């Protein structure tokens, strides 16, 4: 057992959270704890202070905005599953995060900031062209999902910023897709996870977003595949998957299996969208 002796500062409002973040940049931000508590208990992480934002006002909730939907950073996977404002692919994704106990505690913001390459929701945020609202005492800024993950478990936040919300503009006409391949239905970390979005007009793909997790140091978009889709290659576009990803062998799977499965799930999804099985 590794009980941390680190001090904990708990914030009850966003303003307070941002001020505490400013005052204690060395502190680790704690939301639902489903990853952090595991790192601490195993001894893999030593805390120098904890900023507890669980229950903090202004960071939860899922609401309609002028242009789309705003998902608070502290929205849990249970909240996402139950929200009829969100696309079904995102709700399906939420249902595959751990199981009920984890979904009740794990948060959208935690998944994003923790930034595991296997983070279940991350490819979908890339596919949706989501923007992340981040704030500090100095103000707020919007960071596109495509620019957020800068390296293995690294992100664009400074030590004085907090992720506040995710903004998406779902288009009901788009084909949005989520697919997770893991060892079992629940409580599994993905071997490969896909988030994809296609806009099809008159039988032709006008816009394509294909993103994968667990196949590189960060969740990644697949530019060669996306370009091939817009160029009209159809299912053949899946052949380019290998050009865009760098899977590795690890405890959960092998590079070879990941590459093979990634091509297959991309190909079968494109087939579904174009109406050719």
């Amino acid at each position, binding site marked *: 057992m590794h009980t941390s002796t680190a001090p904990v500062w708990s914030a009850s409002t966003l303003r307070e959270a941002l001020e505490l973040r400013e005052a204690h940049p060395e502190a680790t931000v704690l939301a*639902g704890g489903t990853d952090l508590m595991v790192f601490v208990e195993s001894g893999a992480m030593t805390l120098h202070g904890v900023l507890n934002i669980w229950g903090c006002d202004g960071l939860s909730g899922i609401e309609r905005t002028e242009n789309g939907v705003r998902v608070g950073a502290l929205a849990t996977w249970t909240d996402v599953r139950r929200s009829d404002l969100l696309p079904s692919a995102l709700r399906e994704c939420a249902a595959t995060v751990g199981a009920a*106990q984890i979904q009740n505690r794990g948060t959208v913001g935690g998944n994003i900031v923790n930034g595991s390459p296997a983070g279940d929701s991350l490819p979908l945020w890339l596919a949706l062209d989501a923007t992340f609202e981040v704030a500090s005492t100095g103000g707020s800024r919007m960071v596109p999902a495509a620019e957020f993950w800068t390296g293995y478990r690294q992100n664009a936040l400074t030590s004085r910023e907090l992720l506040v919300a995710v903004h998406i503009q779902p288009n009901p006409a788009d084909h949005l897709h989520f697919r997770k391949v893991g060892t079992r239905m629940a409580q599994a970390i993905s071997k490969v996870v896909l988030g994809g979005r296609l806009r099809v007009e008159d039988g032709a793909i006008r816009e394509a977003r294909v993103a994968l997790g667990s196949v590189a140091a960060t969740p990644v978009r697949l530019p060669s595949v996306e370009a091939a889709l817009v160029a009209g290659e159809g299912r053949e576009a899946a052949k380019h998957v290998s050009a865009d990803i760098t899977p590795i062998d690890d405890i959960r799977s092998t590079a070879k299996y990941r590459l093979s499965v990634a091509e297959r799930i991309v190909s079968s999804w494109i087939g579904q969208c174009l109406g050719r099985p």
Partner: protein
Amino acid sequence: MTHFTVNGRDVSVDALPMTRLLDVLREELRLTGTKEGCGEGECGACTVLVDGVPVNSCLIPLAQAQGTAITTVEGIAEDDRLDPIQEAFIEHGAAQCGICTPGFIVTAKALLNECSSPSRRQVREALAGNLCRCTGYQKIVDAVVDAMGAD
């Protein structure tokens, strides 16, 4: 000092704020019905209800218990009367080594509180975060379905 309620009783605990709720329940409050299985949120043996919601108590620091109402397996029975879920576990022999049992019962209780007649599939899904390494799932699911009067 952290203040919250456990099974309806007010408690105040003086411990490090990052102490796991699991350890607070077992070591400080001597409520040893809640078990530690994996200690990393995979197995559900340490499931308790926080404000009615099932969570893994190994993943919750004491600081996040402030002001909450916690229910452990010791709070499922009413006085000397077992909950129908507990009765059904006995009737179906839904326990072998017994380490996972408190977590299953607490998770099942949360399901029953939310949904009075879940399908068998819903029961299996609700219990997916609870692992039984004796692999007695069939009897466990049978017990919960029976207790809830589901199909």
